[in-house]
């Protein structure tokens, strides 16, 4: 498995952990807090912040660890972290796929309102939709790395 595939896999695991911990946190709160819009705003912002920092720290640590292992094994060449034309094409198509998923989540939100779902949960659907879109984007990258990608 190439460096970038491992990087995508780690990112997917971080996002899954992010969704899991967010759901774990909100579902174990006192339901009284559910009506407090500030609770939701602060929780969502804090989780986004934690996730961004966690992603950066883990990916940097992964890069350092990979480089150390690479050097210890005394393998020829260098780590394949070049951003070339294929990488850019894969990123473009993956971002598009992720965008489709987040659009579906955003369009799904008003449907929930029609079914009298509380606006707080509608907001949660959109929020989690972004996580799912990010996971889908990384899964798309993995798919394109494995199966190849065509122009056009």
């Amino acid at each position, binding site marked *: 498995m190439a460096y970038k595939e491992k990087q995508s896999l780690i990112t997917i695991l971080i996002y899954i952990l992010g969704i899991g911990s967010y759901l774990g946190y909100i579902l174990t709160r006192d339901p009284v807090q559910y009506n407090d819009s500030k609770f939701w705003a602060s929780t969502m912002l804090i989780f986004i912040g934690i996730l961004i920092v966690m992603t950066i720290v883990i990916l940097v640590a992964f890069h350092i660890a990979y480089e150390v292992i690479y050097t210890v094994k005394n393998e020829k060449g260098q780590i394949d972290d070049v951003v070339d034309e*294929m990488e850019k094409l894969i990123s473009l198509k993956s971002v598009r796929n992720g965008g489709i998923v987040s659009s579906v989540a955003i369009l799904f939100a008003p449907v929930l309102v029609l079914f009298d779902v509380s606006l707080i949960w509608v907001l949660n659907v959109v929020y989690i939709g972004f996580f799912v879109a990010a996971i889908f984007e990384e899964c798309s990258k993995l798919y394109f790395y494995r199966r190849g990608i065509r122009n056009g």
Partner: protein
Amino acid sequence: MAKYEIQNQIRRLRFDHHEMTQQELANLTGVSRQTIVAIENGKYSPTLELAFAIARIFNVTLDQVFTSVEKEK
């Protein structure tokens, strides 16, 4: 309309050029080894810039590296 696929001779050309490794070719062309692997296996069709760069490295013409072949039905 007939469908075409692009085939390449990179593996043979590397072999003919002192068994050049994929990593060496990647370094010379400024792309990742993963991209060279994908091109060799027909999983990625390079841009004209990269295709010409590869041909230039092997000192051959573009059609000696890449050929367009009609897909078998």
